[in-house]
């Protein structure tokens, strides 16, 4: 479904950040990307949906039998492709003054004509699906609350509901649980995992322990290249090779 081929990206000062990243993803997979901070995991994710343009390589998405190249596209074409890629970010990306339901409804803006969306003309069917999406993450009761009144964990669940409502082929998650406490982390990931039935999920995470529990496959990145691509059960040696330290076991950020 997704083909990432030979992605390379330079930093503004000329140094190479990503060197030659390639991998494929299929529906049903929950891929976790691991690596040190600053190694380029977020940049890689943004290359996939076109928020950042790679200096070399290409990204091809094929959700319905028509492969479409993402890198290098602009304007209307890019938008059409993006409809099918959902993204969940690290902090909250909700519009604070809108209600939770309205935030979820914006998930399908890519599909709704501009004219209709200008006047808030969501159909009853769309509203129903949005409420169902909220149900799937367990916060339907918060549907009419203003988004800024929610806790961090709840806001992430709204973001996931929005992604569900969007019905993409691929869901990208950029450190979706890094800001959350352990209980909320588990809750959010519990809601993410079942989505693999409809889509492929690629998530960037900072803690290996979480990833091993939920992901179906792990990709480790170090020095700009893929150093590990395989089973989610990681030995300490593997983790060291990804992070480059010998002392991972006492890493306080892995909870």
């Amino acid at each position: 479904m997704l083909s990432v081929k030979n992605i390379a990206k330079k930093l503004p000062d000329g140094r190479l950040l990503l060197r030659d990243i390639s991998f494929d993803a299929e529906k049903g997979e929950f891929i976790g990307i691991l690596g040190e901070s600053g190694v380029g995991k977020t940049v890689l994710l943004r290359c996939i949906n076109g928020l950042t343009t790679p200096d070399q390589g290409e990204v091809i998405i094929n959700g319905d039998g028509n492969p479409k190249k993402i890198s290098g596209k602009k304007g209307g074409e890019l938008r059409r492709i993006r409809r099918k890629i959902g993204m969940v970010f690290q902090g909250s990306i909700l519009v604070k003054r809108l209600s939770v339901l309205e935030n979820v409804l914006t998930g399908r803006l890519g599909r709704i004509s501009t004219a209709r969306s200008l006047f808030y003309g969501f159909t009853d069917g769309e509203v129903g699906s949005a409420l169902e999406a909220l149900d799937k993450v367990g916060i339907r009761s918060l549907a009419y609350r203003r988004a800024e009144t929610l806790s961090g964990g709840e806001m992430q669940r709204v973001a996931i509901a929005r992604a569900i409502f969007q019905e993409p082929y691929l869901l990208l998650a950029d450190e979706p649980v890094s800001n959350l406490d352990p209980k909320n982390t588990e809750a959010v990931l519990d809601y993410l995992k079942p989505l693999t039935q409809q889509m492929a999920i690629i998530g960037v995470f900072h803690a290996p322990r979480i990833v091993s529990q939920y992901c179906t496959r792990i990709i480790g990145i170090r020095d700009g290249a893929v150093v590990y691509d395989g089973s989610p059960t990681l030995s300490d040696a593997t983790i060291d090779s990804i992070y480059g330290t010998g002392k991972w076991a006492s890493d306080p950020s892995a909870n």
Partner: protein
Amino acid sequence: MGIRSIGELICVQEIVAVNAMMRYWKYLFPTGLFALLLWGGAAVCRVDPVALIAGVPQGIQLLGHMLPPAWKTFPELIGPALQTAQIAFVGTVLGAFLSFLIGLIAARNVHSMKVLRNMVRAILSAERALPDLIVILFFVAIVGLGPFPGVMALAASSIGMLGKLFADAIEEVDPKPLESMVALGATKAQVIRYAVLPQIIPSLIANTLYRFEVNIRMCILLGVVGAGGIGFNLVTSLRLLKYQEAMAVIITILILVTLCEKSSEILRRIVVGQELLR
């Protein structure tokens, strides 16, 4: 440094005195200059304290003429007062609407046509530096007298201030919702409608209301210059020496301005309280 003779003592005293003078000289010169300018300015203005003092009994006499105000003219003043409010209202709304569009053009985070953006910002600065009065006078000269030109003049003079405020508000918006909507394929218009607009509406409305208060005063002046509204009544009644009617008009004006200020305050509190607005 012992002082060995009377001669030396006198010298030292002189030096001390000269030093003292020089210390105050620093203040003396600018103060003197200032006083000179002040006196000159007063002369230019034909300041005449005698006339002022003579004017006091005249002023009291005038007040005597003006009271009691001509209560029976009040009903016919409602029309012009209302018209003044309408002109200010429509002018402010039109100005706000145009300023919103202009603000979108002038904001850094909406589009990437830098040249256009800088041009618009420069025009806005220039317009802001112009005293509102001049903008209005020119507009009235161009489009003529009457309520409609008054509306356009007010709209034009509001764009300078509101355009900049709106552009700044748009630039200060939290960018994360914007980016996340772009990431799911929304068009620019949709992003503006759902991510930008909800964040800036309170400040839009607060600023527009403030500008409305300013515009009401401008509108009274417009009336004085002949563009319609209650200012015209004031000038006419004064010219016809009908002082009691003039007093009635003044009272009406004060009521009008106070009403507008109060309602604008109330509306602002409602919006900032975020009860009705999302």
